[in-house]
């Protein structure tokens, strides 16, 4: 306790309630396990700084420096930023056809499609969740269950008619189509999670505000919404992680102009084996990981609270 704790608290290591205290021993143990767990990701990041020959070399080169001669040269590679520069500029040959990698375009698509659809689902879903929570109607549970079930269904079940529908309507390969689809994809989960948050709020303040003459809309925005910010954050992170990396729908429903990064990556590796530019691919994935990584990191506390809400009720 005493001084040491307060310094840690200032650095943001807040004490979570209901959690017992353990010391640096636990940090060491968890650190080793976490690093092992993180290793495959770390290797991707390391590979992103390697040239193709180094990426394919045996034995694997995994150290960027020889640490003043401590590491045998066979394991050392010379880090380069070439992969990162070529992500956006270099012409890549895939299957004999030269094409500009054009990943700037795909990154833009991914960011645009994921953020718009997650936010849209958040807006529509939060409104619906508020409706379900505050204006209960007969058979409410049934509606909710149906909504939830649509999420539980394998996406594959609806994919054929959606492909057909998109072909018929010309939505195939358009931003609108994939954004609408992802919005629907995120909605059930958003509604479910936000409803459990609204259910937890005390109604007294809302009733008081209503008696003071605030309109329903004002009550929602001024009283309810600020109280469920943690829930919004958690829902946003989950939606973002799922949408950001979604592959199947994107593969089948986006066109050349709207292609997202996962789809473009899958096409860049179509050859497989030695033909794949591992360093370049690793650089793409590393860049692609950064946005979700930081969003998750900064909303981490809310994430844990968000999961607990509604599911552990007593």
């Amino acid at each position, binding site marked *: 306790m005493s001084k040491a704790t307060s310094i840690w608290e200032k650095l943001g290591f807040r004490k979570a309630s*209901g*959690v*017992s205290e353990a010391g640096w021993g636990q*940090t060491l143990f968890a650190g080793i396990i976490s690093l092992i767990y993180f290793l495959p990701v770390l290797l991707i990041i390391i590979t992103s700084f390697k040239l193709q020959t180094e990426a*394919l070399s*045996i034995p694997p080169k995994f150290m960027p420096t020889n640490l003043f001669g401590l590491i045998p040269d066979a394991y050392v590679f010379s880090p380069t930023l070439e992969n990162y520069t070529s992500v956006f500029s270099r012409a890549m040959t895939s299957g004999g056809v030269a094409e500009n990698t054009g990943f700037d375009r795909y990154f833009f698509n991914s960011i645009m499609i994921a953020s718009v659809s997650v936010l849209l689902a958040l807006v529509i879903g939060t409104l619906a969740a508020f409706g379900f929570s505050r204006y209960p109607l007969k058979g409410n549970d049934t509606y909710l269950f149906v909504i939830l079930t649509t999420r539980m269904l394998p996406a594959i079940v609806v994919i054929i008619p959606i492909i057909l529908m998109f072909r018929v309507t010309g939505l195939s390969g358009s931003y609108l189509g994939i954004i609408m689809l992802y919005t629907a994809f995120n909605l059930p989960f958003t509604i479910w999670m936000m409803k459990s948050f609204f259910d937890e709020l005390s109604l007294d303040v809302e009733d008081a505000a209503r008696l003071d003459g605030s309109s329903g809309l004002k009550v929602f925005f001024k009283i309810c919404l600020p109280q469920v910010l943690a829930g919004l954050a958690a829902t946003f992170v989950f939606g973002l992680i799922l949408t950001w990396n979604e592959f199947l729908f994107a593969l089948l429903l986006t066109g050349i102009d709207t292609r997202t990064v996962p789809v473009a990556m899958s096409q860049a590796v179509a050859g497989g084996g030695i033909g794949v530019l591992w360093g370049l691919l690793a650089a793409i994935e590393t860049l692609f990981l950064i946005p979700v990584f930081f969003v*998750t990191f900064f909303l981490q506390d809310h994430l844990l609270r968000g999961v607990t809400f509604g*599911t552990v009720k007593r």
Partner: protein
Amino acid sequence: MSAITPTTPVPGLFEIQAHNWKLAILVGLIVSVLSMFALPPEAAFWITGAMAAMVAAAFVVNAYRRHYYGGLLVAPAIAVLFVMNIFPLLWSLGLSFFAYQSNQQTIRFVGLTNYTKVLTDSLKAPENWANLTNTAMFVVLTVTAQMIVGFLLALMFAKQFPLRKYLLILVLTPMMLSVVAAGVFFSYYYDPTFGLLSYFIRLFTGEQFILMDNKAGAVAGIVFADAWMWSPFVMLLVLAGLVSVPKYLYEAAAIDRVSGWRRFWSITFPYIRGLLMLALLFRTIEAFKMADLVILLTKGGNGTMTISYHLIRIANEQNKTSEGAAISYVMLFIVIVLTNLYLYIANRRTEGA
């Protein structure tokens, strides 16, 4: 609060009123069904869409006129879900009774033929069943691995220790990776000539190691990658349960000299039971859909073909649309049975506890 103020009288069924949603549904259904039979699919689609919009508009007007704000709030969500989920579902149900290939212009009503073909055809049924068994195997293996690893990781992070926040995000990262990258890089690690796995095994055996050349190896490779990616999800849910146990219960347990297993089973476990079941449900459903890792790691070879991948092939690559729809519905049936089984068990548990 939700009182429906009876300012507007309920219209009779055939009274033409903007808020008469019953009439709107009736007209919408009749017109849609007729157009599906009589008109080409393109026209039928737009007509059905217009009818759906009309029904939705009737609902909205009805809700507005009766000051039913709950309905208004829910309406946009229902509309999106209807267009993107419910309508396609119904459409594919319809398709499964027709002979239709998306690259041909013919469409013919064949009744249950698609289903009998999928389930009993001497050539196709065994393949489908084999794919289904493979899927079941993946479900059992990946979900078990994820539950165990996720649970252990959660136990590790359930205590407060320095740098916890930073280590936690490291463990969460695999979940944030795109499946494509995970799949591709696992194939890189598994590669017999320049892969890490092969390299380390060669250090001991002196021979190059080919993981994916038999079924056991291929399955192990896929299960390992999938479990690695999604254990953090289970961990997150379990961890949320663990930290939600009120501290005073552990204090009371210390005073009552309760320790070890008894403390876990009587105090901790009840708090994570619901979340464990939830994780189980989510991961089972996801595992049931598994296709992308298989596509990337084995392309369905070595007995790793799953029903989802099979479905994608049939419907998208071979254009056998209605046959795919029939398989979808068989899958849907299985998932609904599984989900209900889960809900039944979960409910019985809570009632019994």
